[in-house]
C-alpha cells in the first residue's frame, strides 16, 4: 500500500494535443480517489499513465517513495481492472486469478491458498474450473477483480469497471467494490463517467474537463460548493438549473421574479452585470408545502409545462427564455457535458404530495440561501465557499 502523487502531469500526443494538461493530484494511502468527467476528458489516459501503459510527457508520477515515470507496468506493482475485463480466454477462472502469482514464480501451494482466498471473497468458488467464455458479465467482472486482489499490489486501479453491466448488477457491484476497498484498505484510483459512482464510492473526487483538473474535493464539497459552471452542471442528477440573473442589492433577479439571497453572497456578486444563477432542483418546492413547514425563502409564480410524478417526488418542467449571452454559454456547457443542447428550461423537484398539475400557473418556493452565482464569461463560481470546496486549480491564486 502506498500513496500516489501526481505532480504537473502532462500527456501530449504526437499532434501536440494535450490529453492531460498540468494535472496534480495526491492520493493518500488507503484513499478511494475517483477520476470523473465526460468522455475525452483525459481521465482514462491519466489512469493509464499511473499504471504505465501510457508514457508521461512531463511531470512526476510518484508511487510510495518511488518516481515511476520510467518504470514498466510490471515494475510498478499495481493491479488494474479493465473496462472490458481483459480476461485470458484460454485459461480457467482459477488460472486467470493465479496468473500474476504464476508470473511471480510463487510455489503452487501458496498460489492455491491465495487464489481460493480471493475466490471465496468474490464468491467464485463454484466457477473456478470454468472458462471466462461461459461466465455471465457480472461473473467476469468478479474474475477481473479477483485477478487484482489476489496479489499484494500497492494500489488498485479501475477503468470504468461497471460500464458494461446492466443497471441492477451495476448497483450491486458498486457496493461490492466499496465494501472490498474498505476491507482491504488499499489505495484505489477509480475512473468513471457516471456521477452516481463518483458520489457514492469516492473519498475524494477529481473532476476533469478536456485534460484539465476542475476541482478536487469530497463528494459533498463538490455538490454543495462547485468551483465552476462545469462542475456544478456535471455533479448532481437531475442537473443543476442555470438561469440568467442580475444582482440588485441582496436580491437576485431571475426570469420568474426576484429571490432574496444572503448578504455576503450578494456582495461578492455585486456590480457584475448579467450572471448565471445555479439552483439545484431540490432547492425548489411547492410554495404551499413550503409555507406549511414555514421555511424561509422566496416564492414566484410560473407556468408549469410538464409534470413527472415519481411517487416520492415530482419533477416539474418550466421553460424560460434566456438572453443570447447566457444561452451561448449554456450551450457550450451542454457540449462539454456530452449532452444535447435542449431548450432552456427549469427542472424543479417537488415533494411527492404536491398537487401542482400540468399547464397550471404554480406558486414555487425557492431556497435563496443555496443559490450559486456564476460569472458567464469565465464560468467561475462567485459564491463558492472556499473553505469547503476542496481544491480548485487556478482559483487558488485569486483566493490567496
Amino acid at each position: 500500500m502506498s500513496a500516489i502523487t501526481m505532480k504537473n502531469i502532462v500527456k501530449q500526443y504526437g499532434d501536440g494535443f494535450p490529453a492531460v494538461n498540468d494535472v496534480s493530484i495526491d492520493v493518500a494511502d488507503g484513499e478511494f480517489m475517483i477520476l470523473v468527467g465526460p468522455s475525452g476528458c483525459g481521465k482514462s489516459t491519466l489512469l493509464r499513465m499511473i499504471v504505465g501503459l501510457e508514457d508521461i510527457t512531463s511531470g512526476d508520477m510518484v508511487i510510495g517513495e518511488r518516481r515511476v515515470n520510467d518504470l514498466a507496468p510490471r515494475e510498478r506493482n499495481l493491479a488494474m481492472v479493465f473496462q472490458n475485463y481483459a480476461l485470458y480466454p484460454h485459461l480457467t477462472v482459477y488460472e486467470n486469478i493465479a496468473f500474476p502469482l504464476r508470473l511471480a514464480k510463487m510455489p503452487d501451494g501458496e498460489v492455491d491458498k491465495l487464489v481460493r482466498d480471493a475466490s471465496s471473497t468474490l464468491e467464485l468458488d463454484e466457477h473456478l474450473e470454468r472458462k471466462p467464455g461461459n461466465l455471465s458479465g457480472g461473473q467476469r467482472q468478479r474474475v477481473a477483480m479477483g485477478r487484482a486482489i489476489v496479489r499484494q499490489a500497492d494500489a488498485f486501479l479501475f477503468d470504468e469497471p461497471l460500464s458494461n453491466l446492466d443497471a441492477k448488477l451495476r448497483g450491486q457491484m458498486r457496493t461490492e467494490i466499496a465494501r472490498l476497498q474498505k476491507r482491504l484498505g488499499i489505495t484505489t484510483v477509480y475512473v468513471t463517467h457516471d456521477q452516481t459512482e463518483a458520489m457514492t464510492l469516492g473519498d475524494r473526487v477529481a473532476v476533469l474537463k478536456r485534460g484539465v483538473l476542475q476541482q478536487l474535493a469530497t463528494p459533498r464539497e463538490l455538490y454543495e460548493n462547485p468551483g465552476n459552471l462545469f462542475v456544478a452542471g456535471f455533479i448532481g442528477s437531475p442537473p443543476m438549473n442555470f438561469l440568467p440573473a442580475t444582482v440588485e442589492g441582496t436580491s437576485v433577479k431571475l426570469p420568474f421574479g426576484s429571490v432574496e439571497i444572503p448578504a455576503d453572497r450578494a456582495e461578492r456578486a455585486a456590480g457584475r452585470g448579467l450572471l448565471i444563477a445555479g439552483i439545484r432542483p431540490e432547492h425548489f418546492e411547492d410554495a404551499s408545502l413550503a409555507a406549511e413547514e414555514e421555511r424561509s425563502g422566496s416564492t414566484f409564480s410560473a407556468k408549469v409545462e410538464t409534470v413527472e410524478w415519481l411517487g416520492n417526488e415530482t419533477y416539474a418542467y418550466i421553460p424560460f427564455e434566456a438572453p443570447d449571452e447566457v444561452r451561448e454559454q449554456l450551450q457550450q456547457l451542454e457540449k462539454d457535458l456530452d449532452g444535447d443542447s435542449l431548450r432552456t428550461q427549469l427542472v424543479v423537484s417537488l415533494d411527492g404530495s404536491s398537487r401542482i398539475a400540468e399547464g397550471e400557473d404554480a406558486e414555487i418556493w425557492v431556497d435563496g440561501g443555496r443559490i450559486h452565482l456564476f460569472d458567464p464569461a469565465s464560468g467561475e463560481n462567485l459564491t463558492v465557499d472556499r473553505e469547503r470546496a476542496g481544491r480548485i486549480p487556478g482559483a487558488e491564486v485569486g483566493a490567496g
Partner: protein
Amino acid sequence: MNNRTLNRVGMVVGCLLIMVWCLLPVAWIISLSFKSEASITNGNPGFLPSEGTSAGWANYQAVWDNEQFRRAIFNSIGISLIATLLSIVVATLAAYAIARLEFRGKKLVLSLSLAIAMFPVVSLVGPLFDMWRAIGLYDTWPGLIIPYMSFTLPLAIWTLSAFFREIPWEMEQAAQVDGATSWQAFRKVIVPLAAPGVFTAAILTFFFAWNDFVFGISLTSTENARPIPASLSFFVGADPFNRPASLLAAGAVIATIPIIVIVLIFQRKIVAGLTSGAVKG
C-alpha cells in the same frame, strides 16, 4: 415443409457429386495400387481388383523396400517440417510486429512480402539453380528449405497478422500490469490466443512444401535431398518405356498419408472463436 426436404435432398446430391468429382482420382489411384503390374499392362478393366489381377500389399511392399523411395519420404518429411517450423516462427514474430507496432517501413514489409508471393516459381528456378551450385547449397536440405520458407512466408504473415489484429490490446496490457514482460505477455497470452491462426498458417505452409515439384526436381540431383514428388517422377522400372504404374500408384498413396495425418492433427487445434469471453462481446 416439402420445400425444405427438397432443399436437403438437393444439398446431399450436390455434395455427393462434388465428392465423387474430387475423390474419383484418389479412389482410382488406390484401386491401381492394389492391382498387379501385369494386369495393368494388359489393360485389365474394372475398378475393383478381382481374382488373379489383385496384387494385395505386394506393391506397397515393393515400394517400401526401395531404398530410394524411403530416402525421398524421409527428405520430404524433414524438409517440409523444418520449413514449416521456421516459416511459422518468423511469420509469427513478423505478423505480431505488423499488427501491433508502429514502425517505419511497415507498408514496405507488407508489400514486399506480397511481391515475393507474386513471382512465378518457374522464373526463379533458373537463377536459384546457378546460385545454389555456386554457394554449395545445391542438392542439400537447406537448398530446398530456404525457397519453401520464402514462398510461404508472405501468406503466413498475412494470415497471422489478421489473427493478431483480432486479439484485443487489453489482453497484453493486462498481462503486463499483472507482472509480465513483453515477451511473457506474447508467449503466455498472445500466442495461445493466436493458435488457430498459427495452425492454419502451418497447414498451408506444409502443403506448399510437401506438394512442391519444380524446386524439388530442379535443385536436387541425388537422394541426398530429393523430395517425394520429384522422386516419384524418377521412379522408373527396368524398362523406361513401360513404367511400373502399380508401383507408382502405391508410392503416390504412401506420399499422401503424411499430409492426411498432419491435417488431422492440426485441424483439431483450429478452433474458431477461441477469444470469446475475453472481453465483453
